[in-house]
């Protein structure tokens, strides 16, 4: 459904150049939930934004259903509303001066008038609001009257109003309380099954990823360092960074700290080095060369020399 091919995004801030996403390849099948996991700043949101039209790829190709999304730096929508995003912060994702009703119906403004009428019917709005756990009489209220979880439900209803096929969920529950988190995650899971949706699910929380996703891609400094089925990654992580994220070996860091001989100090000319070189407890001389992807098992690949 989605094909991401050698995509790169470089941000220039003054004289600094940051590769937020580096030569990334990823394909997503219809009906899948693919997780993107990695610490803050690893480029997960940037990758998501290139799928929704908010950031222009510096290089590479992104195709949705076989059709390129970006042509000559212009974003082409196959059909408006087919790809929808739910962002992390429900505080800022809803316009404080709009009523819930208008917020949910807003994406329809990009559709033609026939579709807009059809999808903007009152019964449909009410059905959708109830489906995401809101009440009918919430529709005339303003966002500030709702809790974080409810606001996220409003954002989900808004994303669903256009009948999307693909949704980018950028840390949709990170800002919520644990108990509310679980409810929203369950809602997203149910909706996916009901409407046969495809998700890309961004998170830095491994247990949320495990609960939600079929496959997971681990990102570090803009690069996917390991990708595979959730089962396989959790049971048999290969990349040291994945292992640290999983904390399956909490002692890994401590133990190896002493073992690492820093005979391979953080080199400044680390252009060609492994992205994880600076932080890797296991680094060796060979790591100054960028590792290739190698298979661990079926559909499970990683990028590290030391296996």
């Amino acid at each position, binding site marked *: 459904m989605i094909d991401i091919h050698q995509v790169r995004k470089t941000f220039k801030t003054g004289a600094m150049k940051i590769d937020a996403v580096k030569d990334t390849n990823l394909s997503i099948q219809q009906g899948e939930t693919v997780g993107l996991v990695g610490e803050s700043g690893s480029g997960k949101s940037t990758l998501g934004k290139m799928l929704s039209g*908010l950031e222009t790829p510096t290089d590479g190709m992104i195709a949705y259903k076989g059709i390129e999304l970006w042509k000559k730096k212009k974003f082409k929508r196959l059909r408006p509303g087919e790809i929808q*995003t739910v962002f992390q912060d429900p505080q800022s994702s809803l316009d404080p*001066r709009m009523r819930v009703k208008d917020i949910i119906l807003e994406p329809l403004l*990009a559709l033609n008038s026939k579709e807009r009428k059809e999808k903007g019917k009152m019964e449909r709005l009410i059905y959708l609001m109830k489906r995401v756990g809101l009440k009918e009489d919430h529709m005339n209220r303003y966002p500030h009257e709702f*809790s974080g979880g*409810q606001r996220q439900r409003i954002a989900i209803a808004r994303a669903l109003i256009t009948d999307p096929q693909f949704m980018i969920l950028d840390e949709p529950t990170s800002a919520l309380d644990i108990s509310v988190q679980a409810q929203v995650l369950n809602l997203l899971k149910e909706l996916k099954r009901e409407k046969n949706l495809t998700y890309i699910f961004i998170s830095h929380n491994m247990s949320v990823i495990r609960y939600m996703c079929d496959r997971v891609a681990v990102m570090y400094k803009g690069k996917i360092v390991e990708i595979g089925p959730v089962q396989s990654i959790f049971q048999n992580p290969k990349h040291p960074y994945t292992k640290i994220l999983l904390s399956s070996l909490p002692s890994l860091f401590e133990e190896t700290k002493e073992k690492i001989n820093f005979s391979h100090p953080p080199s400044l000319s680390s252009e060609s080095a492994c992205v994880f070189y600076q932080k890797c407890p296991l680094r060796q001389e060979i790591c100054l060369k960028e590792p290739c992807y190698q298979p661990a098992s079926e559909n499970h690949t990683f990028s590290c020399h030391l296996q």
Partner: protein
Amino acid sequence: MSAEIQTVKQIEKPITIHPVWYKLKNNKMTWIGFVIIFVIILTSLLAPVLTSYDPTKIYIVEKFQGPSGKHWFGTDEVGRDILSRILYGGRLSLGMGVLAILITAAIGIVLGTISGFFGGYIDQIIMRIMDMILAFPTLILAMALAAALGPSLQNAMLAIAIVKIPVYVRLARSETLVLREKLFVKSAITFGIHPVRIILKHIVPNSLSPVIIQATLDIGDAILMIATLGFLGLGAQPPTPEWGAMISIGWKYLLDFWWYPTFPGIFLFMSSCAFNLIGDGIRDILDPKSNS
């Protein structure tokens, strides 16, 4: 789930009707401002009822009469009733001041939001033009423009509207830059909604408060500027009753006939102050940072 479904009403409230009235009630100075403006507007609208004198009719026999029961504020050098001229003049002075600011605020919002939202060349061009306007002292530029356009009340108003635009463009632009990063604007972009619609639906309504505050504060200033241009002969032309023009002529007679420039001056001063009081009050109400 049910516990969460209950609406949480106490979470940080933005502007709703209730607190506004609460704050307004407790702000005496703002009320004084409102009352003064209300009285001045009402009396100038009711001028034909309140006074039987024609503000432009010359009656040379009664020139330079001091304040009396017949002419409360006296008469001028050609025998016109000064009170009547002040009341009719209020329509022009206040009306033109308000109109100048409405025009400038409207243009400023349009240019500022476009500049901030699209950035790039459009932004560069708009902001360089604004810098050019800002490079001159406001009043001197207004005088030059008014003189170039030809001395008349409308042109004076237009000149003031032009010199005040940069303030509003900058204000609207900086608000837009903040709003552009908000997720509700980003979301709207991902929906594929037309940029003009995004500006009208999200950017303008959310950047209106500081513009309204600035506008109310500026009305007093605009009234003074119109009077100043009138004083310099660049505004309303005689015999049009306008406060600045009246002061300008009356000024020469201050020592012998004190009432002539004094009464229009008092009205000018009071209305300018009153708009500033209202502006301050509105700032307190709309600006969440000034909560005391």
